[in-house]
């Protein structure tokens, strides 16, 4: 464990054994692991994630700065994917075996088959290097909204692309199922307009599995965001963890991983709550 020893990383090769021992005592590194863990958890509960080894900056502050970038990227990626994927899946379920349905089928498989980091690389190659339409790195000037949006387009495209196909497939399958239900037939028999049936009755139910899926898939969404942040040199949790791994800044890594996992659990919980709010069957079974 010599190359990764937290004390020698923090103090450098020229620290005397006395300084090293004092530092280890200050960081509780001389105590048993379980004791270190309990101290860490106690601090976390008080909102203290520790301090950067090199700059002594509070990790909590760094997290508060970086988190909005990652959340913006994740939300805009899933947002555009939902705006395109859900209508596509819906339309192809209403008109099965047409050219649109086949197009959606090919598109879904195609977009799912390209890993998001490959989409990022190929998108940079096409739009930034060859066509020169898009900037490659950074998140744009702070305060300049247009510039920030311009910098957001490619990463959001790359992270969201796989989700377009995924959502389209999911919505198509559940929409097909719902359209065959008895209550839809009853609604038809009552002479309701098909637009009313689709939007007020069918889609409302067919969308539920999709919400759960987004909740569960948020982890892979975050993974995609991590790659995009690193490839596009965009600030955010992913880029932060990557940089800190390279410099072995353990407290920051610890804090960032904890925040990421917390975010994932939080989103899954929200998705479950939304589903149970929308679906009385789930609500009653709780």
């Amino acid at each position, binding site marked *: 464990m010599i190359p*990764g020893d937290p004390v020698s990383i923090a103090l450098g090769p020229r620290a005397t054994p006395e300084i090293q021992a004092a530092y280890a005592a200050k960081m509780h590194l001389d105590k048993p692991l379980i004791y270190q863990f309990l101290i860490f958890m106690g601090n976390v509960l008080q909102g203290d994630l520790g301090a950067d080894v090199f700059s002594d900056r509070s990790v909590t502050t760094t997290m508060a700065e970086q988190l909005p970038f990652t959340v913006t990227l994740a939300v805009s990626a899933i947002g555009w994917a939902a705006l395109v994927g859900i209508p596509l899946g819906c339309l192809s379920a209403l008109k099965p075996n047409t050219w649109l349905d086949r197009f959606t089928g090919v598109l879904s498989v195609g977009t799912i088959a390209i890993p998001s980091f490959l989409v990022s690389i190929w998108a*940079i190659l096409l739009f930034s290097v060859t066509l020169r339409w898009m900037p490659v790195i950074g998140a744009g000037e702070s305060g300049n909204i247009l510039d920030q949006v311009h910098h957001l387009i490619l990463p959001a495209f790359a992270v969201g692309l796989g989700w377009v196909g995924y959502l389209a497939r999911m919505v198509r399958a559940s929409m097909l199922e719902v359209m065959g239900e008895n209550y839809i037939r009853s609604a038809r028999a009552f002479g309701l307009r098909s637009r009313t049936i689709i939007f007020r009755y069918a889609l409302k139910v067919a969308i539920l599995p999709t919400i759960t899926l987004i909740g569960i898939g948020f*982890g*892979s969404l975050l993974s995609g965001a*991590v*790659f995009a942040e690193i490839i596009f040199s965009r600030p955010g949790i992913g880029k932060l963890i990557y940089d800190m791994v390279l410099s*072995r800044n353990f407290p920051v890594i610890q804090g960032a991983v904890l925040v*990421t996992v917390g975010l994932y659990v939080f989103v899954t919980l929200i998705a479950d709550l939304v589903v149970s709010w929308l679906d009385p069957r789930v609500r009653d079974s709780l």
Partner: protein
Amino acid sequence: MSEIASNKALESAKKDQDIKGHMSESREKLSLFLNNRLGMFGLMLVVLFFVSAIFAPYFATHDPFLMDIPQRMSGPTLEHWAGTDQLGRDTYSRVIYGGRVALKVAAIGVSISLFVGLLLGMLAGYGPRWLDNFLLLIFDSIRSFPTIVLALAAVALLGPSLELVLAVVIVTSIPGYARLARTSTLALKNTEFILAERSLGAHPAIIMWRHIMPNVIGPLLILAAMDVPVVVTIEAGLSFLGLGVLPPTASWGTILNEGYLVIRDTPWPIIAGGIPLVLTTLGFTFLGEALRDVFDPRLRKGK
């Protein structure tokens, strides 16, 4: 005497019929599979993945490590089918050899996580309640880490290596298999033939291995086929970030990593390094879906 003989004849005829019935069922499945065009296309890609990796020296046109600086970063030519990289190495040959790393990670990673997941899943489903809860807690904790974040944390502690990539792959895929095995085991647990086994006093290990396992493993094998591209992508992604397989080893990730650094000079390494990833994903996805359609009649009817 003749009565017994005719009885025997009847019995053997019945047996024949049974065997025939069984045969025709498996033949039906085979023809279903053969008629699934996407499935056959997937199978072709999967075979290509295996064959090109195993027989890499026969497919490659150059030594993947041989540098040819005067010819660096050339486009596709008759000599270099996919161009050369920043050191003049033949990109096509490097891609072929990169398949070996992908195959190694996929084969070892998927088989170990399939085996361990199967075992833990059956234990969780068949074992006592507290063990079930405990294992579920562990599976859920693992699942709450985005794979790449877990991998980054592991690399921070242990440094990048192929073994670490494998470990990350195995740890993150076990819960998927285990949950699937657990659900089917729970459904089987109270069926009559298992109850009969238990009342006859069979050892739980025997029941699990001889009677539950064969009924549980099918869906897991299909999941394994679908899991291969996930595993290959994790390896390529980590190696692309410089946290997995390290250069000069040729892997699809390291080819992309080195190509990305010279993206303004030549697009070919990035294009050539990415295509096998897409083809592998397509192949295993189509194959997995075709297998699922064939072996899960409920889904077939739903279509």
